[in-house]
């Protein structure tokens, strides 16, 4: 029986295992050094915040793996020997495979800052980071201030986490506005306000020079180069992005760039070795996606796809239309299609913001053909299927606005802003778009 070994028990590896099991009775082993069972990494923050217990982050009960005949092995893979198809573990164990799926995810970036390995300095990625945070920042008596370096999604999540335990937070963001490499100005400004509104000390346009230690080798303060200011703190969170977690294959024959190089079939240069999820790097980005996509659902999709290939239905990884979501403290964010931080030459934009300053939508469309390109929506939930269909059928922005009521996914009784949005668009563009009533027929068409 063919033995499929998957390194990594995150969403990619586990999805691959589940789908291989659905399609075949191959022997499956999942290897992880982090935890015994699959958990949702995105939910780690809620454990610290007290919304959930760690067990609640595990999507499957512990009997699930045995019942589905998926073997779990805890261990740290040190090297991969592709000639003999063998994994060597840090403790000296070995494990043979017929097909290998590398799904080892990411690790937090560290840019060689002085003091980056001191006690009390941590990323927010692994379960061990959570344990570390619990140790160094259990409350605002032990941790009188925390400094977070790096203004991305994990940074703001860590800020929210610490804030939930009333720990003062200084948030150092290199850019001039939060996440403005991804978010256009309006949205980015909205999130700046949300961060400040929560009492978080947001510092825009600043870097980290060094982290200073006290006499016990524990973090004492950080220094900001721009101002020379020294900020006393007990915890430093390094959240300046992530990169593929592939050190253990650097010495193997598997081709790597920043990540494990794969083709559209998620195959590496070595036969029977595949890579999926955050650690996989496409030779070229698909559509306008990046070559490495550290997103939950792309990991899942790669798992679904590679399972087909391994089970004899060789199939290309073809992620559909781009979408994503996040939550910035209390503001939910969804995006469908592309809304770049900077408007491209062929694009036209429409931005609407609610008077509360906590909701907005941003439409991107082709200024000549009026084809809809994408939408950012903050504080308003939208229907994924609606926009997926719009993008597939290449509908115009006018069509989208006309049918905005079909798109809304807010809970019942929420105040709807569609007519507001449409009338603003009409005014700015001299159009006469009439909002249609929500129709189940169209939604399910």
């Amino acid at each position, binding site marked *: 029986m063919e033995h499929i070994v998957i390194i990594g028990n995150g969403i990619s590896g586990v999805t691959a295992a589940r789908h291989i099991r659905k399609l075949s009775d191959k022997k499956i082993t999942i290897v992880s050094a982090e935890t015994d069972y699959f958990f949702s990494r995105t939910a780690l923050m809620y454990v610290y915040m007290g919304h959930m217990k760690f067990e609640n982050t595990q*999507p499957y009960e512990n009997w699930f793996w045995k019942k589905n005949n998926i073997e779990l092995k805890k261990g740290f893979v040190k090297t991969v020997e592709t000639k003999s198809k063998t994994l060597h573990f840090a403790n000296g164990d070995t494990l043979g495979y017929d097909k290998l799926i590398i799904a080892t995810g990411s690790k937090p970036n560290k840019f060689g800052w002085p003091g980056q390995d001191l006690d009390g300095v941590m990323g927010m990625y692994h379960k061990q980071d959570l344990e570390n945070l619990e140790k160094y920042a259990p409350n605002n008596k032990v941790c009188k201030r925390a400094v977070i370096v790096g203004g991305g999604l994990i940074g703001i999540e860590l800020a929210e986490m610490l804030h939930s335990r009333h720990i003062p937070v200084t948030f150092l963001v290199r850019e001039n506005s939060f996440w403005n490499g991804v978010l256009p100005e309006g949205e980015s400004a909205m999130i700046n306000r949300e961060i400040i509104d929560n009492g978080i000390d947001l510092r825009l346009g600043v870097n980290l020079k060094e982290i200073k230690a006290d006499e016990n080798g524990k973090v004492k303060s950080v220094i900001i180069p721009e101002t020379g200011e020294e900020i006393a703190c007990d915890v430093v969170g390094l959240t300046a992005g992530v990169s593929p977690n592939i050190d253990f294959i650097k010495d193997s024959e598997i081709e790597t760039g920043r990540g494990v190089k794969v083709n559209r079939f998620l195959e590496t240069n070595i036969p029977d070795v595949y890579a999926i999820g955050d650690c996989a790097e496409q030779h070229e980005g698909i559509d306008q996606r990046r070559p490495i996509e550290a997103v939950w659902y792309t990991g899942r999709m790669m798992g679904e796809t590679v399972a087909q290939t391994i089970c004899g239905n060789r199939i290309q990884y073809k992620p559909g239309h781009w979408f994503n979501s996040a939550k910035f403290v209390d503001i939910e964010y969804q995006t469908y299609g592309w809304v770049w931080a900077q408007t491209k030459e062929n694009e036209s934009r429409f931005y609407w913001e609610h008077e509360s300053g906590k909701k907005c939508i941003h439409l991107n469309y082709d200024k000549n053909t009026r084809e809809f390109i994408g939408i950012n929506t903050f504080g308003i939930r939208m229907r994924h299927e609606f926009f997926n269909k719009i993008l597939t059928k290449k509908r115009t922005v006018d069509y989208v606005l006309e049918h905005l009521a079909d798109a809304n996914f807010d809970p019942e009784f929420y105040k709807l802003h569609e007519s507001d949005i449409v009338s603003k668009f009409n005014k700015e563009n001299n159009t006469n778009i009439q909002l249609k009533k929500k129709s189940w027929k169209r939604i399910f068409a």
Partner: protein
Amino acid sequence: MKAIKQIGLVIFLIGLTIFTGTLFTGSFSLTESELDSFVDSKGYKSEIIKEELRNAIVTTEDLNIFQFSSRVRNAYQASNNYYDGLIAKYDAEKNWDKKGEQYQYRISGKLHTVSYEIAKKAGSGFVKENAGLIWWLTFGLAILGALLFILPNFILLGNKGIKNNGIYLEASTNRGWIAWLVLVYLVAFYLLLYFAADYVVNWTYILDPISEFLNGGPASQWFVYGFLYCVIMLVMATRMYIKYRHNKYQVIRTTSVLFFQIVFAFLIPEIMTSLNMPGYDFKNAFPLDYDFFFDWNLDNLRDNGAIGLFILVWGIVLTLVIVPVMVYFFGKRWYCSWVCGCGGLAETLGDPYRQHSNKSLNAWKLERWLIHSVLIFSLVMTLVTLYCYFSGAEAFLGIKSHWIKDTYSFLIGSWFAGVIGTGFYPIFGNRVWCRFGCPLAAYLGLVQRFKSRFRITTNGGQCISCGNCSTYCEQGIDVRAYAQKGENIVRASCVGCGICSAVCPRGVLKLENGPEDGRINPTEILLGNDVDLMDLVNQK
């Protein structure tokens, strides 16, 4: 703000302590004439009960309720023992005529119930004589304290939004010692209320003035329970309003359960009673209202002319027509989390404990066995009762009507719905009864699962499997298991509280009433992945 909270907590605890303390106060005894009129009114045939009671409670001694209750029960026991002795004696002598005669002298009924009846007349003391003042010291202080504890959250919780911070870090909401204390108090409360009401007779004195104002009579233990229920729901609803003020569905839903509890379950029946009608809760549908078809209720309705007939017809139409039709259009939520009193308490008092429902597959299996068994139990009981009522027989299918009614009332009505259903909130979550026991929920669930427009729509591929939805599902549904597969949630047990949708950080879940087509949508590959592949896999 935090200081106000602390002060509020102290005031609340003082109110609660005084409330509990009143149980130990007062002096209980009857005068000769009171005893005479009581015994006459009961029409006892026993020749010795009056004497026994006279020796026991016509006294100048200062008896508290516990001593009093014990003496009353002993008196009845003594009377019954006497006749049991005679029965045994004549039995031994094979004197069947004499033996048969003795049975009429035995007094049936629960001893604590009759003890309550006498105690209600026999009490005197500070509480009874100063009901108004005591009301303020108990209800008044507890309400004030609770509000002082709750209202500062408006500021302390920060901006509008989901604020579940610390729920799993605190002893009150993480099954810590506070939770266990609350459990003990609630369980004790229900045990007294259901099985030893005489011990809480002092509480009824506190509410006598309000009861007399509303229905013209003194307060019973059920009036105390109803009043307390409304007060608790009101106070805890303010907590809901603050916590979920960003979520209009929750705000409206909370208002709805409050309205139905206070107006339908409490005020209307009281007012009907004051107008000499049978007090009836028009929203309480059979089989949750399990004694609707009991003989005493049917007799009562028959004796009440037009209004009685109306209630009878309404009760039947409610269960057979209104309930299923509404479930078809809106899901069982219209009842369970918008109207029902049990649901109302669960969604207000129980909200802090909703995360404790068990999400395991085994719990789901247990749930299906239990709840459907209770449904069948209630239907068999009703069938037996009705058959016996109309035929005059004592039993049907070998089941004694009296026995099955008593058994159901005891096991399901008292233990399951009350002691376990509410008492265990802090440990097993707030919907234990609704999930595992309520026969009406079982019935609504069957309709919802097989013939309804209601579903929780999963928003394509947006789910990140975080598990907030499953954690906060009070019905123990593993919502995430569906959401992460891109499947809509169509489950018999879903009461549509809407919290899964509220706590979802990615906008994945929406409660909707839509066309039945496509309501249940099993998927292999989620939306977002290559379309051809999806078609390939999903359509096979």
